[in-house]
């Protein structure tokens, strides 16, 4: 389920589709929903918080914070699996930026 959230840095990164006289807002929303569902299904139980999706000139950057439940080799496999599959789906380079945290993160919901 995609929702607007306040990540620990304190800002929301929205794609350029919502700006004045810019197109593509609906496509970005559909892509976002699909990518979040995909990530939720791949990294079951180890995602500490919602993924942050950024787009920089055709490159999709997915920033994930994971818990340290799994062995690193499994995490590496899942990460490269998501990178290759998503880049084949969307025909654009997809980069994953991972970070692991020992416990659950505490932050405010708005």
């Amino acid at each position, binding site marked *: 389920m995609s929702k607007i959230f306040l990540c620990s840095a304190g800002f929301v990164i929205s794609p350029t589709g919502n700006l*004045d006289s810019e197109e593509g807002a609906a496509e970005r929303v559909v892509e976002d929903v699909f990518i979040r569902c995909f990530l939720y299904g791949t990294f079951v139980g180890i995602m500490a918080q919602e993924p942050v999706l950024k787009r*920089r000139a055709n490159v999709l950057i997915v920033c994930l914070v994971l818990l340290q439940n799994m062995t690193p080799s499994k995490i590496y496999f899942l990460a490269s699996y998501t990178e290759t599959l998503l880049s084949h789906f969307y025909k654009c380079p997809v980069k994953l930026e*991972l970070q692991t945290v020992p416990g659950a993160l505490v932050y405010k919901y708005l």
Partner: protein
Amino acid sequence: MAGIKGSGTLPGSYAVRVAPKQYLLQNKNLMWIQFSLGTDLHTVFQSYGNMPLVSISDEPDTLYRRLSVLVKGHDKAVLDSYEYFAVLAAEELGLSIEKVYEPPRKIERMTLLKSVHVYKKHRVQYEMRTYYRCLELKHLTGSTANVYLEYIQRNLPEGVAMEVKKTKIEKLPEHIQKPIWGTLPQVEETVNES
């Protein structure tokens, strides 16, 4: 877990978050490595060390009288920092800046019903704000403009859109360089006799 941020599958050289002091020319000789999590699971090496930095051609370079770069974003602070970066880059490259100004913001508001079924009197309002920043440079050559724009665009933050307008200076075509009155043959004036 930050590995070396390389470009990997992109065909052009791509630099993530280049610090303002680095010039684009340095990045053309980088080897691109696609890293996955800082390990050696995916390594694709493409070295472009043989490409020359300066290319010389016989055609004259295009000249631009004005290059207008308009950036739009939701967040004013992001645009402030981007303007500082772009102005610094232009000054370091020796470009003449005509003016840097801030066009007024645009707010798109939607007033919707708060409830699903009735209660017409209770509404909720959403708005989408677009802030602008315009940077105008004058008297550039085509290659300078290309280099500057490429550097600026590679470091565009996410959520910021850019529009570029170029005003080109061209030579007057040969057939209209001189006035033709005096060179044309005399046309006899016909008088209608009714």
